[in-house]
């Protein structure tokens, strides 16, 4: 009796295991690999999810790694689509077709109680490099500036560094490091002297967005390029896209994709 039971249990486990393997295999659906920028990742995931709703027989794997990984994997063909959140250098462009999804703004966020509402790019550079350490030097009240930055590898940090800090200036080493856009917003929200940067797509009303050089970050100013702190979201394909990849990209660049991108606050450039 005991032995019988044990044999039955083993058999059931074996059947379940085999079923799981078969189901996980997923049959013969074709796969699109999307690899690259961690900033593009959530948008690409959203697009993939919506695309799968109407195009059942396809699998889209979205992975991070960073813009440079995206460019490299598009070039050597390990990914069907590479994603980048920075402009490509001329030598990187060879053999790649670019599809610009739109522009993402980098918003400088301060506490709602902060008197400062406009800073120039130079002032931002001085503040984040530690040259200016008091709000009164940039037109605010007499209080120390508390910097909030992102962790190494973050696409938003990468964009901020290349647009505002330039090559040779580093962000002050004792700036508070937060691990997500949401954590940066919370830190700024609860500290009247804090300053941080977040993606335009994730900006909310609980913190104040600064104007940069007199121009506030809005859809139109990002679209026409007058708001300087912005970066493109790019899909890269080796050669010209064909088959499933072409169908997906056409859908993304078409009406439905544009609608989703607008919901994600990715602004179409009108430059």
């Amino acid at each position, binding site marked *: 009796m*005991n*032995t019988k039971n*044990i044999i039955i249990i083993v058999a059931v486990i074996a059947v379940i295991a085999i079923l799981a393997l078969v189901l996980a295999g997923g049959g013969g659906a074709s796969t699109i690999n999307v690899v690259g920028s*961690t900033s593009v990742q959530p948008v690409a995931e959203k697009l993939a999810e919506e695309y799968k709703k109407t195009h059942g027989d396809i699998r889209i794997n979205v992975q*991070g*790694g*960073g813009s440079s*990984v995206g460019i490299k994997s598009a070039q050597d063909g390990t990914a069907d689509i590479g994603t980048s959140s920075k402009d490509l250098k001329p030598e990187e462009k060879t053999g790649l077709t670019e599809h610009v999804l739109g522009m993402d703004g980098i918003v400088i966020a301060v506490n709602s109680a902060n008197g400062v509402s406009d800073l120039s790019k130079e002032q931002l550079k001085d503040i984040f490099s530690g040259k200016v350490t008091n709000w009164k030097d940039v037109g605010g009240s007499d209080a120390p500036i*508390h910097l909030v930055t992102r*962790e*190494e*590898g*973050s696409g938003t940090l990468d964009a901020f560094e290349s647009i505002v800090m330039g090559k040779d200036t580093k962000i002050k*080493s*004792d*700036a*508070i*490091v*937060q*691990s997500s856009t949401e*954590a940066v917003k*919370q*830190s700024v929200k*609860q*500290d009247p002297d*804090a300053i941080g940067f977040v993606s335009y797509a994730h900006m909310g009303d609980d913190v104040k967005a600064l104007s940069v050089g007199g121009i506030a970050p809005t859809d139109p100013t990002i679209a026409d390029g007058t708001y300087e702190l912005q970066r493109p979201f790019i899909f890269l394909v080796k050669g010209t896209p064909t088959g499933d990849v072409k169908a997906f990209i056409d859908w993304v660049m078409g009406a439905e994709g544009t609608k989703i991108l607008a919901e994600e606050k990715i602004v179409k450039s009108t430059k």
Partner: protein
Amino acid sequence: MEKNRLSEFLIEKGLFITAIFSIVIILLIVSFILVEGIPAFENYGFFHFLFGMEWGPSRGQFGVLAMIIGSIYVTLLSLLMAVPLSLLCAIFMAEVAPNNIRKILKPVIETLSGIPSVVYGFFGLIVLVPLVRTYFGGTGFSLFTASLILTVMVLPTIITISQDSLRAVPQEYREASFGLGATNWQTIRHVIFPAALPGIITAIILGMGRAVGETLAVIMVAGNVVQIPGSIFDPIRPLTANIALEMGYATGLHYNALFGTAIVLFLIIGLLLLVANYIQYKYKVDIGGGYL
């Protein structure tokens, strides 16, 4: 008979397999971490890695000394606050409190250990960080804030286990002590506490393990700045925070360096366990054949 022997055999082997399962898992994890982390030591140099002051993966710098010190500081400071609090609480619950109070206290403390660490972290970020900033200056993200959160998080572990070991002291000890005319406090101080000490040390070790290993709550309040703190109100980055912060993006040597960080964390925890076990062994109380 034949059938019985087979089932006997299967059950015995089945139990054996379940028993070694956890050991196998630990070995797998350790070997995985070693395989992924050792390339970082090979390429960067073990001592260079261990005693390097600069952490800048994009510039190819992988020194974790500031984080080792951060981890040790935050653990020690939180234990410094948590141990007296929780021992007094455990003694109260085990020896002094009347039954009905104990019935309220125990579930409350157990609930404390059931709260997810992200909730502790968020509470710290919203409530403690502004408080520390207002009363002690700085940004509020600090070694001290992280230690406060950890203190609350390790309290239930230390209280529950040390209370159990206090209550496990045989009733005869108390009776003998009272019989000699000792007061309740004298009994606790000179009889029950020493007899329960090995269990209490185990409790502190487990609490320490939780404090060293805690990640999410610490990331949210420690400030994550790679530096050796000059005061307890400076931000720090413990080893665990370093791994969790950057693992999402890391590739190549950076990825290996994060596993290297995990190896260092492993070594530290191993070292702490060795020290703690030695203390436990030294202070064990012999009674008859065995010890408590």
